[in-house]
């Protein structure tokens, strides 16, 4: 998600962007944020911005507003599919681990030469599937859960300790009680006056400039 103003300028269809912040005179304009105070207001706003065809924009809310993701046109995440394969890996790994380490018969299958520890217990066969199921289950869940968390963080590009939205002290209430709609300046449709006009038309409580 990080971008440099050079890239934004290099885009052939990018219009002239007012890059200089009049207050500091140094920073680049990264985007514009509109502040709202209710979930209903940001929902309406998001629908309009989505309809206007913007792509590089986001909403920042203190809690997941029900239905806002689909109003913004966010596609359903592929996370569950990743998790399924993560779990499957765990299942196979646990089965192979137990078969390889508790029996010698299948040792020839091992790519890594694992020498099993044959140990008969209460007359159970060396490969006792019923006794292997608990560990298979646990390892499957472990892999799935770690894939879920890892996958979620990876897809969200987190941790990300520096971000223009975090930088602005005016957006601190995004984790408290305010709802912000942010349009980035790198969006092909971003044209300062027109975008500002669009945001104004959504009747926000405030309009905030974000520096890169």
């Amino acid at each position, binding site marked *: 998600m990080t971008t440099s103003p050079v890239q934004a300028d290099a885009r052939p269809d990018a219009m002239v962007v007012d890059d200089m912040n009049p207050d500091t005179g140094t920073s680049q304009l990264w985007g514009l944020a509109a502040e709202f105070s209710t979930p209903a207001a940001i929902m309406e706003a998001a629908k309009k911005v989505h309809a206007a065809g913007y792509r590089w924009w986001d909403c920042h809310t203190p809690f997941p507003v*029900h*239905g806002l993701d689909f109003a913004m046109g966010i596609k359903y995440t592929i996370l*569950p599919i990743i998790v*399924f394969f993560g779990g499957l890996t765990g299942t196979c790994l646990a089965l192979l681990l137990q078969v390889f380490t508790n029996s010698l018969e299948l040792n020839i299958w091992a790519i890594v030469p694992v020498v099993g520890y044959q140990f008969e217990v*209460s*007359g*159970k066969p060396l490969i006792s599937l*019923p*006794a292997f*199921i608990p560990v298979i289950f646990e390892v499957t869940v472990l892999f799935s859960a770690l894939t879920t968390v890892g996958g979620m963080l990876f897809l969200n590009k987190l941790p990300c300790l520096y971000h223009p939205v975090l930088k602005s002290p005016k957006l601190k209430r995004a984790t408290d009680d305010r709802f912000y709609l942010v349009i980035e300046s790198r969006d092909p449709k971003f044209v300062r006056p027109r975008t500002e006009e669009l945001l104004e038309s959504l009747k926000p409580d405030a309009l905030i400039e974000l520096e890169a």
Partner: protein
Amino acid sequence: MNSIDTKTIRMGGLAPTGVVLGGLVGLGGIAASIALGADESGWTNFWKSYIFAFMVITGISLGGLFFVMLQHITRAGWSVVVRRLSEGFASNLRWLWIAFVPVIILVWSGEGAVLYPWADPVVVQNDPVLLKKAGYLDPTFWSIRAICFLFIWAALAQFFVGQSIRQDSDGDVSRTRRMQAAAPVGILLYGISQTFAGIDWVMTLEPTWFSTMFGVYWFAVSLTGFFSCLILLACFLQSAGRLKGAISKDHYQDMGKLLFAFGVVFWAYIGYSQFMLIWYANIPIETGWFLPRQMGPWKWVSLLLILGHFALPFVLLVSRWPKRWKNALAAIALWMVLMMIVDVYWLVMPTMSAKAVHDATNLMELVDAVDAGTLSVGWNLTVTNFTALVGMLGLLVAGTCAGLWRCSLVPAADPRLDESLAFENL
């Protein structure tokens, strides 16, 4: 928010058709079973088929009763639009006792040994283990218990279905409160009665065997059947133009989740735990029950249950989209009903002569005897099995249609109906 097309909330012509067709198939099936039932070994085949088919429809109806009471206990909002359909299944409990009367008469009259070995006093006298439990496995005591269970179910079904239907016309919210207050007591009675019904009617088919988990297993079986049938009924009614706008994808997704949770995962959990503990401890008196189920044709049935009742539906139902795709869900539900029937068949049918087990010097001797056909494992797939099953399922259809005949297909005056209609899944 969805809104119901009020013109489509009655079964209309479907109900009498269902009652007549189901009733005809039902009576025809039972009659055919009686006609075909007796073979050279006597009436055992008929009675086993009968109790198998009876347990299938009892399980489905009991699941309905449980679900209805659970919704009241938890004051559930989402499920209101499918609660009447569940009440339709539960309402069968009001007449199901009639179908059990023949079994009670059989046991009481002293002829019960064709079905339950413990009903034969000679067998009991010669078996030291059975002698110890003769007090419990006594035909009179057994019959009294059966009457109690059937009465409890009929009374609970009458109360919950009756209150709910009467609310449709008078819109009295206090009925909801009354049902909420009664539900915990109802669940308690249900828990005890359905456990002991499972023990008395199915587990004692093998009178020396015991498992403390059996009641829970029977509960899982019953819920599998019920959730599958609920999905099928909802799909059928909607494809027949009923309940337009009432049951949405979100409701199907939830029913699919319940089928997945109880019919697939919980069932496997209980089944696995029961099997693994007995397999691991390897105590002869317990392993005897699994012995015939791992031999001859039964081993393929056991395998079918593992794959068909767990592995396949697990993969099919784990994702979100099949649960939201009505036709796919209906197909899976149909498969699950079939698996539930196989499961009950697997519980009821297998037998193995205790004497043969006792006399055998090792396991392979038994396996060889079974393979050679000299030792029976109770594998006797007859036409009677099918006629009895089809008959009972016919009765289930007729009873459910009759239960839903004169009422709306949704609890129209339920205070949480709007919440249910507005329900959206995450």
